[in-house]
């Protein structure tokens, strides 16, 4: 590999930024184009809805309506940009933390929360929305995205697959295998690392000694970039370039977004055991929603009325979600036998009858 090729793969030495923490524009490298204004306005609206969805889901968990909720508060720029960088024909491979991204993809929020509500595992039809089931076994989905990208490439389709993965997930073997496979096959896949600084309690410094996680792509021949993950404009711009790169047949692309998990790992976690409030306060100054709002207002792309309207829309979204989540659902216990195979085995049929008889006996 020539030195020039290596340079072409390397990420920028500092995260790409379009907007600083105060909401003012800063100069970004010319190779990344600013997203269209209308897309930025849409992104803002989704971020407001996304944040409201997130706080609503946390509240529902406290009320016992959800078994567990991993919040992405503070990561809205990544959640929304990841989805808005994609087209309808593209596939998304999300993790358990990416519910807001699914909402921004237009999925029914109740179907998104099926998993965490405990009604079933995956509540939506993946093929209909081109979103794989939210994945919990870490980094396994990165290989699936690579395979899906390879499928689309072989069929001559122009779709791209995007895998979301966390900073911790980049330590798993599957992550590395996916990067290698994708590069060798030139699969049209984008690896989107949301580095939120923690894997449960383990801070980034204990997770990796790499100069930045974005450098992990280079050894595999994967073009890589790092970006300020709380700057929607930057994340969207770089991800759009990455998706275009993949769609253009130039192989995979890895983007690391530096962001922060404002809440604990899940509602069941006690973040006070491993990080201090001061750190959380520092990051709240980098809030992605406020930053985009200030920036768009400064450019005259957003009015006070728009902001208000976005808030109203988010409130009604939350109210609707609340009402639907508070309605009790009747679980069909026999469904546990229905989807194990295309046709149930004779043994499963027997077991289904056994449970049915038990349930009938309980009723009578």
């Amino acid at each position, binding site marked *: 590999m020539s030195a020039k090729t290596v340079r072409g793969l390397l990420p920028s030495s500092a995260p790409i930024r379009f907007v600083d923490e105060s909401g003012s524009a800063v100069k970004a490298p010319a190779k990344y184009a600013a997203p269209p204004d209308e897309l930025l306005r849409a992104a803002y609206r989704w971020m407001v809805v996304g944040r409201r969805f997130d706080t609503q889901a946390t509240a529902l968990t406290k009320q016992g309506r959800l*078994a*567990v909720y991993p919040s992405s508060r503070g990561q809205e720029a990544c959640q929304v940009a990841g989805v808005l960088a994609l087209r309808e024909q593209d596939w998304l491979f999300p993790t358990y933390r990416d519910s807001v991204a699914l909402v921004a993809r237009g999925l029914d929020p109740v179907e998104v929360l099926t*998993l*965490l*509500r*405990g*009604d*079933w*595992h995956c509540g939506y039809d993946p093929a209909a929305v081109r979103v794989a089931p939210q994945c*919990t*076994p*870490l980094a396994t989905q990165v290989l699936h995205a690579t395979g899906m990208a390879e499928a689309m490439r072989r069929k001559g389709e122009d779709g791209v697959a995007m895998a979301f993965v966390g900073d*911790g*997930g980049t*330590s*798993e*073997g*599957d992550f590395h295998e996916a990067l290698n496979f994708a590069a060798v096959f030139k699969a049209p896949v984008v690896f989107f690392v949301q580095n939120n600084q923690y*894997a*449960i*309690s*383990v801070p980034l410094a*204990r*997770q*990796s000694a790499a100069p930045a996680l974005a450098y992990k792509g280079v050894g595999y021949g994967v073009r890589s970039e790092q970006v300020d993950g709380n700057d929607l404009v930057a994340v969207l711009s770089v991800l759009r370039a990455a998706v275009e790169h993949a769609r253009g047949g130039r192989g995979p692309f890895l983007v690391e977004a530096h962001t922060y998990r404002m809440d604990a790992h899940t509602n069941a*976690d006690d973040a006070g*055991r*491993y990080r201090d409030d001061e750190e959380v306060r520092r990051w709240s100054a980098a809030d992605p929603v406020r930053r985009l709002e200030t920036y768009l207002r400064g450019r005259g792309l957003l009015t006070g009325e728009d902001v208000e309207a976005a808030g109203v829309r988010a409130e009604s979204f939350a109210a609707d979600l609340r009402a639907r989540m508070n309605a009790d659902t009747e*679980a069909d*216990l*026999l*469904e*546990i*036998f229905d989807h*194990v195979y295309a046709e149930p*085995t004779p*043994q*499963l049929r027997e*077991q289904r009858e056994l*449970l049915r008889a*038990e*349930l009938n006996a*309980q009723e009578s």
Partner: protein
Amino acid sequence: MPTVSMAQALNTALRDALRDDERVLIFGEDVGPLGGVFRITDGLTRDFGEQRCFDTPLAESGIVGLAVGLAMGGFRPVVEMQFDAFAYPAFEQIASHVAKLRNRTRGRLALPMVIRVPYGGGVGGVEHHCDSSEAYYAHTPGLKVVTPATPEDAYWLLRDAVADPDPVVFLEPKKLYWSKAEAGLERRAAAPFGRAVVRRPGRDATLVAYGPAVLVAMEAATAAAEDGLDLEVVDLRTIVPFDDETVVASVRRTGRCVVVQEAQGFAGVGAEIAARVQERCFHSLAAPVLRVAGFDVPYPPPKLEHAHLPGVDRVLDAVERLQFGDRPDVRHLSRGAA
């Protein structure tokens, strides 16, 4: 005797192992400052230092593979897999190396190490957090497989596992982590490792169980007693090595046997137990050996798991099918609410 939870007993066992043997190292995901997601390693980094109890990067194959090398180098690693299903990335290391190194080297290289795995369901966990994975390990020669059902056993089994010359997969029933009981952690009353125990003596039938199913078997025995049926409960404690002697002695005495396990039944540990019992006790048996197990389905989501988990009623149904023709009084065991 103090009353402790199983979680506390395990924590104390790790603490005492660190204190008594400087070769012991504890590592895994979030086991350091956080104390593990179940707090089993709570305070160990604080009290014994980063060198003895530490967080690793997030990679289960890495954790077990590193432990193999450390054990070869003279340490005694005790590693934690965060949940049952998250041990699967480590399965190659476990099946190809941990289980086989002694055999491959004609006994020249041993691997004294412990792989702790919180396992099983009944705690409302979402997918991948509730697997009963014991059969995978028990089916792999070279691994010892242990699962406690009481705080006292948890303590002594873990101490013995750490001291064992062979690798031990130590399965901790999540459902029992917070269950409390009096426990003698100071002085050893018995040697549980490799020995099953009769948890409750009885004359009419034997319930064989292990791990989370022991509690179910005990409750079933209590319920059956109200109907005049006296059930014996045998707790295996270690699945490998398997204590044929205790199980066989019990079934020869009672003449009837039901095996209870939480895991899906097909090709499970219960099948092995049933086969061993009928091979050894055929002439003592008044009825076929029956199994009560989870259904052969992927572990269901939280709202459906109660339909899957074998409970007291399913055990009593099985007991009723033990052909008590000579005992018309036990035909209709009463049922508690589901």
